[in-house]
């Protein structure tokens, strides 16, 4: 008997290839990252800012804006779409457990996104290697960025799946996903900054701030991916000083951010009235 998770996963990956999602995501990441790397290579060459820091920071900003968005749009209708077209009922009458169905979808979308991230970012390394601009430091930092971007993609894929289980209409899922993106990518840090710079800023100690940042996967990603490179850039330098957790704890926290929504999505799908 074949493994349903694997069967669903393979079918879904084939779908993302056939409907050109994978190609689109890869091209988008490759084009934008190349553009950013070339831009940072020229614009900041005389500014005193370390070039490598600038390039990695630019690429991590690209990941912060686009990878959550791509993950959310790839997965928002994974469950609700099946439910709307009636295939969820059919699938669950098959010898497939509900957690297998969700995990199959999750791994398919995460793998598809990861392939796009790897191909997109590695294409810059390839292009830079032709012009002899590729340094070992940049290659090492890029691999770190790819690794954390994959984790970030996993987190938002899991969140999108959770949304897809909660809602009953695709249109609602889109709205929820946009709200999630806005909250984590834009508003979380903005609100934090407002509080910190207000007269009540003293309430949040450095330790507390460090803990608060664990509630936003984007901040964790930023700290891990930029790492030492951020020391040359003032805001990130400050952030690194504030965060007391090791890279291991931060990576573990990102994994928890993947697992927790998935478990909750499985729990909700088990009790869902189809």
């Amino acid at each position: 008997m074949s493994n349903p998770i694997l069967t669903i996963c393979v079918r879904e990956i084939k779908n993302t290839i056939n409907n050109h999602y994978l190609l689109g995501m890869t091209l988008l990441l490759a084009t934008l990252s190349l553009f950013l790397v070339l831009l940072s290579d020229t614009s900041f060459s005389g500014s005193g800012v370390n070039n490598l820091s600038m390039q990695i920071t630019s690429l991590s900003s690209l990941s912060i804006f686009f990878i959550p968005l791509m993950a959310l749009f790839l997965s928002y209708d994974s469950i609700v779409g099946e439910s709307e077209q009636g295939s969820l009922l059919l699938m669950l009458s098959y010898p497939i457990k509900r957690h297998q169905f969700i995990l199959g979808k999750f791994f398919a979308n995460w793998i598809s996104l990861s392939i796009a991230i790897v191909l997109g970012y590695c294409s810059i390394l390839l292009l830079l290697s032709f012009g002899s601009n590729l340094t070992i430091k940049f290659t090492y930092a890029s691999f770190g960025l790819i690794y954390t971007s994959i984790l970030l993609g996993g987190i938002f894929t899991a969140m999108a799946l959770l949304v897809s289980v909660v809602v009953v209409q695709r249109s609602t899922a889109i709205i929820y996903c946009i709200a999630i993106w806005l909250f984590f990518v834009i508003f979380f840090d903005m609100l934090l900054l407002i509080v910190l710079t207000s007269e009540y800023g003293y309430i949040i100690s450095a330790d507390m701030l460090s803990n608060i940042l664990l509630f936003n996967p984007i901040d964790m990603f930023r700290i891990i991916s930029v790492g030492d490179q951020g020391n040359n850039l003032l805001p990130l330098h400050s952030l690194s000083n504030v965060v007391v957790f090791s890279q291991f704890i931060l990576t573990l926290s990102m994994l928890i951010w993947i697992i927790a929504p998935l478990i909750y999505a499985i729990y909700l799908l088990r009790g869902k009235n189809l």
Partner: protein
Amino acid sequence: MPKNILINYKNINFSYKDVQILFDINITIKKGESVAIVGHNGAGKTTLIKLLIGVLEPNSGTINSTHYIQTNKLSFMPEHSALYGHLSGIELMHYFAELKGVGFKDIDKILKLVKIDFAMYKKISQYSKGMKQRLMLAQALLSDPEILILDEPYSGLDPSSRRLFSYILQDLSAKGKSIILSSHTLEGLTDIVDNVIFMKKGRVALSGKIKTVIDNLDLNDKIKLTLDKESSADKIIKSIQHLITSHMLSHNKLTLFYKTTNNIEILRTIVNIASIQDIDINKANVNDAYYLIYDKL
């Protein structure tokens, strides 16, 4: 539980968001038996089907059934064509076969059986509704299931697809497979199923063998007479009043309702006293039972 019992539901209740949908459902289905779950929209047929396929669980009651849920012993065909339009028919069948853990060797045979083999490489989005329904039936036949549960299988089908479905289901029933299907009407189903469950407002209004149900309902047979001008309807009615239960007269068309036991005597009397252009005798059937249950009970 006796070995020949496939499904045994006792006092099943189901509610969703504080609204009770099924009330005190009792069902027993033996191996090889075929059942039609009949009722109007909102009668609870689809909810009952969802309980039977195991995607819903009752709030209370006892289920003593053979372990068939989420196994290859059970196949389900949903009401709406739950298909992936971007796949071809053959790709979909391969996908479903892999999920069921069965090989691909029977796929061609099944697609031929449901007469969709000619379009197996076409995208499903290009299929007509009838073709999609046939593909849905094909996926249900993949694992050679012991129990086939079909939700409104005839809904929206053209006559030729209806005939094909009936033929396939009759054949499966004859092979000892259990077929459970839901429908708005029993019309055309009596060759496939031998048992019926009439659902009304979430309850089982009546159930049992179709013949027994009709007999127990004490339904009337009817004779439709087209009378000659010189024949008097009043005279006919007067002479057989003690043999009929009711009558309807419209111009020269007289319909008499009566119990089966009186049919010979009625016919003899009519032939003796009236001049008739046409006569049409209808035995009480499942549709009469349906109308009695939904219009009167």
